[in-house]
């Protein structure tokens, strides 16, 4: 897959999902992992984990995918590709006063977001099926979910504790 193709894919998906980091996961999984096979599910998940533990915008993890496929130029080009649609803000600001007809836009956006929620859970099911293969991985997943969702711990802490739990189980020979 050429760098130009990758940028086009990232640009399109970013525009479709209104810049929502996690909402791009199902699209990237369907295209890069399932259809083209240029990326493994492990790589996609690792990229997304990086996004959770680094500061800044949640969609910068595409730079990790760019780096995996095309090195530093890939990281830079994919980052630029997801910033580009932001320039639509300028005509939007200029035309703001006469935007009566665009009242449908928030409704369209909301429809996209709600559909994204369904897609994210569908992707979770399919990724989960291939990733949560043993008792230990299921247990670590449950522990991480509890820490992140119920206890609302910082993602860095969640990641550190999950890694310790899993590594401990692996050292003991359970995994």
């Amino acid at each position, binding site marked *: 897959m050429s760098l130009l193709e990758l940028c086009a894919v990232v640009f399109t998906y970013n525009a479709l999902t209104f810049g929502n980091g996690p909402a791009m996961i199902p699209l990237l999984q369907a295209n890069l992992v399932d259809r083209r096979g240029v990326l493994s599910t492990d790589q996609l998940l690792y990229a997304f984990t990086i996004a959770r533990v680094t500061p800044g915008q949640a969609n910068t993890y595409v730079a990790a995918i760019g780096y995996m496929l095309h090195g530093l130029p890939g990281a830079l080009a994919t980052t630029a590709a997801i910033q580009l649609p932001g320039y639509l803000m300028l005509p939007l600001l200029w035309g703001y006063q006469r935007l009566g007809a665009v009242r449908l836009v928030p409704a369209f956006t909301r429809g996209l977001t709600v559909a994204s929620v369904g897609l994210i859970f569908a992707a979770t099911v399919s990724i989960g099926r291939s990733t949560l293969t043993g008792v230990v991985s299921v247990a670590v997943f449950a522990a991480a979910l509890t820490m992140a969702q119920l206890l609302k711990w910082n993602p860095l802490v969640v990641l550190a504790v999950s890694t310790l739990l899993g590594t401990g189980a*692996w050292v003991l020979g359970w995994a």
Partner: protein
Amino acid sequence: MPADGDGQAADSDGRPPDDQPARRPNRPPQPISRRALFGIFLKAGLAFGGGLGILAVLEQELVTRRQAVGREEFLRLYGLGRIVPSGTMTALAVAYGYRFAGLAGTVISLTALVLPALVLTVALTAVYGLVRQQQWLPELLPVTILPAALAFIVVAGLRLGREVFRPSRELVLAAASFAGAAVLHLSPVLLLLAGGVAGTVLFRPKEDQA
């Protein structure tokens, strides 16, 4: 857009004055240099917590500390940024960069905003590339980082869908797109666009439906 025009526009709309926040004595909007612009957005790019974390820094710097942007205008720009198809914070970086330093300003603000995340992401990905060939990694990843990542995705989905998980039109649409992807294996792009079109019917502003 002149900040002092806002008050009059609100009055002629017939809005009650009490929905306006109390104003300090009107100060003219303060200018922001290119260097300060870079600094503000670099600080925003270092914020944790995704878009809202970044927004909090921008509010603190632009509205509260420097008084370069009025509160109403800050909120209006945020609303506009939400409908731009890219990160909302990307759209805001473009808007404020352009406002304070023209097109060159947009490059300054965007570069500063993505720089911290980009550097860290590349560094962490490079580390992954180095250890990927090790024997123990394929055994260790499925019991450590990967289940944690899956949990993060679930949490993100729950957060995105906070208003979806109750009896509502939203829940029906989300369930339909879930079924389309998980059961029928339809293209996610197709399902997203269908969701958007359905949204224009389901979530149209009330006054239009009469």
